[in-house]
């Protein structure tokens, strides 16, 4: 089944460096340049044409660089880097959360001294999001520990929560860090973002270098603002063609992971381009980059365009500089997909690369549906689920749990009208369909969490989930079975109690 998908629809080509002249891929490159020129802002044009930057950052370009190489060259104050170079990189933003923050700050204190100060209190973003709405004392304590560190270090961006009874009583509280980073303007093209969470790669959607690190590395960054990185080689994924109305970015990334396996991009960059990518919204691009770590990728990246700039410039006043891969840059592999021919897919238990067509799994009975997380808990994810439920006009057959990623998403679920639904909001449609009431925003049951976590898989049940991992035990119970799917597929499955292709309800 998986192989039939490969042979019939997208064609996959691998080519060597010599084959990759600019002329081989004129379309996507020219389109992104063209779009930038249309915008009145000159910054992006400058970075495409590169005539005005100082020689120290661009130098004379002898060899073409990918955008990841350019970001890392700039951050290491070099004119050129090549894959395999070990370089010291200046970090623009370090993100940590309640699960790894206490350990990272613990190492920072141990190694730099009790009285040490962090390298830059305005470049550290601390976002409690993992274990928030729980009675687990150690989990609660960890948020308290982060509050203490943030006060002591005068951390500017700490999105605190103190009233666990009602998240709305905490105006600073955001929720899932990767979505909050974007919404609060911390994701900016051309920058280096590190986070103590593997899904930090989500921010690559904004054309920046973003990757996950451990507590010890984070402790070092806290003290120095620097990290030793190896420049990764870049794999390029060119997605062309009109996206069918029943497909979502989640289908694309599950398709790709199924293609290259859970270790197919280990140590590598996954760069996404092509006309399909250009048509995607920022939230869909985030879904795509979010799961590159599920293929082992170090980072994922998408060239910034007008969509990116429109999103970013509405949320930050910090200056930034977009970068783009050179026409003669080297890619270790090229994959091309004709998106118009793809079908909705799922990842079957217990691996994100265990790809199957959703319709091939129509006999799989399910016990519940979960819509949430950094991958599938954004505003557009709920809008998509609501759109399908409204189009079907039916009741869900299995418990359907909804966990908005952030407070902003939660508000959108209750406030934004779903297009074509006669002014109804997502929340109204969910209620009419018999879903559970949208829960307080957090990472929720995506990673199981403490035993009292809302919607945690405490029984060996079968769950269709919009989250990112389906390894044994991921959502709680070791014998639980998780089918990773798009919000459309999740909503369709909720209506039938089986894994269901959303085309059954979308025309």
């Amino acid at each position: 089944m998986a192989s039939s998908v490969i042979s019939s629809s997208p064609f996959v080509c691998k080519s060597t460096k010599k084959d990759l002249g600019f002329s081989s891929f004129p379309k996507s490159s020219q389109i992104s340049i063209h779009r930038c020129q249309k915008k009145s802002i000159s910054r992006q044009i400058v970075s495409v044409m590169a005539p005005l930057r100082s020689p120290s950052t661009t130098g004379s370009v002898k060899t073409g660089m990918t955008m990841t190489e350019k970001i890392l060259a700039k951050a290491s104050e070099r004119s050129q880097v090549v894959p395999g170079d070990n370089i010291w990189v200046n970090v623009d933003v370090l993100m940590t959360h309640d699960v790894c923050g206490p350990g990272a700050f613990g190492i920072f204190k141990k190694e730099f001294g009790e009285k040490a100060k962090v390298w830059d209190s305005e470049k550290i973003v601390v976002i409690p999001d993992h274990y928030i709405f729980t009675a687990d004392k150690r989990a609660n304590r960890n948020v308290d520990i982060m509050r203490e560190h943030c006060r002591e270090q005068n951390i500017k961006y700490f999105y605190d929560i103190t009233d666990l009874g009602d998240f709305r009583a905490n105006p600073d509280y955001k929720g899932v860090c990767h979505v909050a980073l974007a919404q609060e303007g911390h994701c900016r093209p051309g920058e280096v973002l590190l986070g103590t969470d593997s899904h930090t790669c989500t921010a690559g959607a904004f054309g920046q270098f973003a990757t996950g690190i451990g507590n010890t590395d984070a402790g070092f960054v806290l003290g120095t603002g620097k990290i030793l990185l190896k420049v990764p080689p870049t794999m390029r994924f060119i997605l062309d063609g009109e996206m069918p109305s029943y497909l979502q970015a989640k289908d694309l990334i599950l398709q790709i992971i199924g293609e290259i396996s859970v270790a197919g991009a280990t140590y590598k960059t996954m760069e996404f381009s092509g006309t399909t990518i250009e048509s995607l919204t920022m939230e869909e691009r985030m879904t795509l980059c979010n799961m590159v770590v599920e293929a082992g990728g170090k980072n994922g990246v998408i060239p910034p365009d007008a969509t990116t700039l429109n999103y970013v410039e509405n949320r930050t006043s910090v200056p930034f500089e977009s970068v783009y891969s050179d026409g003669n840059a080297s890619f270790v592999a090229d994959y091309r997909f004709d998106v118009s021919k793809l079908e909705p897919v799922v990842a079957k238990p217990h691996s994100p690369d265990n790809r199957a067509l959703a319709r091939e799994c129509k006999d799989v009975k399910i016990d519940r549906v979960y819509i949430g997380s950094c991958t599938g808990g954004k505003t557009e994810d709920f809008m998509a689920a609501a759109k399908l439920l409204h189009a079907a006009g039916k009741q869900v057959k299995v418990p359907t749990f909804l966990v908005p990623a952030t407070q902003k998403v939660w508000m959108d679920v209750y406030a934004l009208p779903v297009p074509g639904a006669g002014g109804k909001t997502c929340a109204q449609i969910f209620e009419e369909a018999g879903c559970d009431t949208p829960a307080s925003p957090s990472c929720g049951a995506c990673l199981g969490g403490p035993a009292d976590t809302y919607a945690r898989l405490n029984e060996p049940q079968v769950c269709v989930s919009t989250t990112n991992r389906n390894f044994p035990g991921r959502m709680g119970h070791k014998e639980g079975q998780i089918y990773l799917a798009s919000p459309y597929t999740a909503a369709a499955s909720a209506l039938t109690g089986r894994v269901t292709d959303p085309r059954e309800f979308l025309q």
Partner: protein
Amino acid sequence: MAASLQSANPILSSRTLASPNRSSFAQFRSPFLRFDSASASSNFKPLVSREASSSFVARSAAEPQERKTFHGLCYVVGDNIDTDQIIPAEFLTLVPSNPDEYEKLGSYALVGLPAAYKERFVQPGEMKTKYSIIIGGENFGCGSSREHAPVCLGAAGAKAVVAQSYARIFFRNSVATGEIYPLDSEVRVCDECKTGDVATVELREGDSILINHTTGKEYKLKPIGDAGPVIDAGGIFAYARKAGMIPSAAA
């Protein structure tokens, strides 16, 4: 990361290892083939002293080069052992930099493995494992960036993982913390070893090996390279201090 630490690294390449004396290796290795660890252990000083376990680490004082040997029982797992199986997310409330919680993390090491694994890595009620060498397949440590994963294995008393390949962040966290040696096998050892087999890992420049004494087979391991001395030192901070890259212990 193994490769990354080998070549152009300005910090980590300063140290060159003397080449191993082959003839002495033969003598060195032979005790493991005949003696059990209890009798052999009196001959060797433990390198890692922060916890006692059934394994021990030996270093030849007479040799200038780094050469380490881990001897003990194997615990064998398959491919894609992800961080949720190594340390389930519910235990991430434990903060590794807190000594009590560090110990506790060890007691939960690999508790997320499915029931198909009949032998537990750490017996219920125990804090330490009796297995010193974990043998895995492809992509060991995939998934989350949680440093709790290599930490819990080290805290449980394991010394080395021998797998075909590693997920990037797990490898890096293993080196940065110095908790466990992530060693690459050249062949699929996990299909040829069983949990409970008695094995020895010898780390040598160039040709490190894994010997399974139960089956009598010997396997080549890929060199750990410059990541080795970092783990020897106890992690990236300890190594940097030892190498004079950063000032020693801050107030």
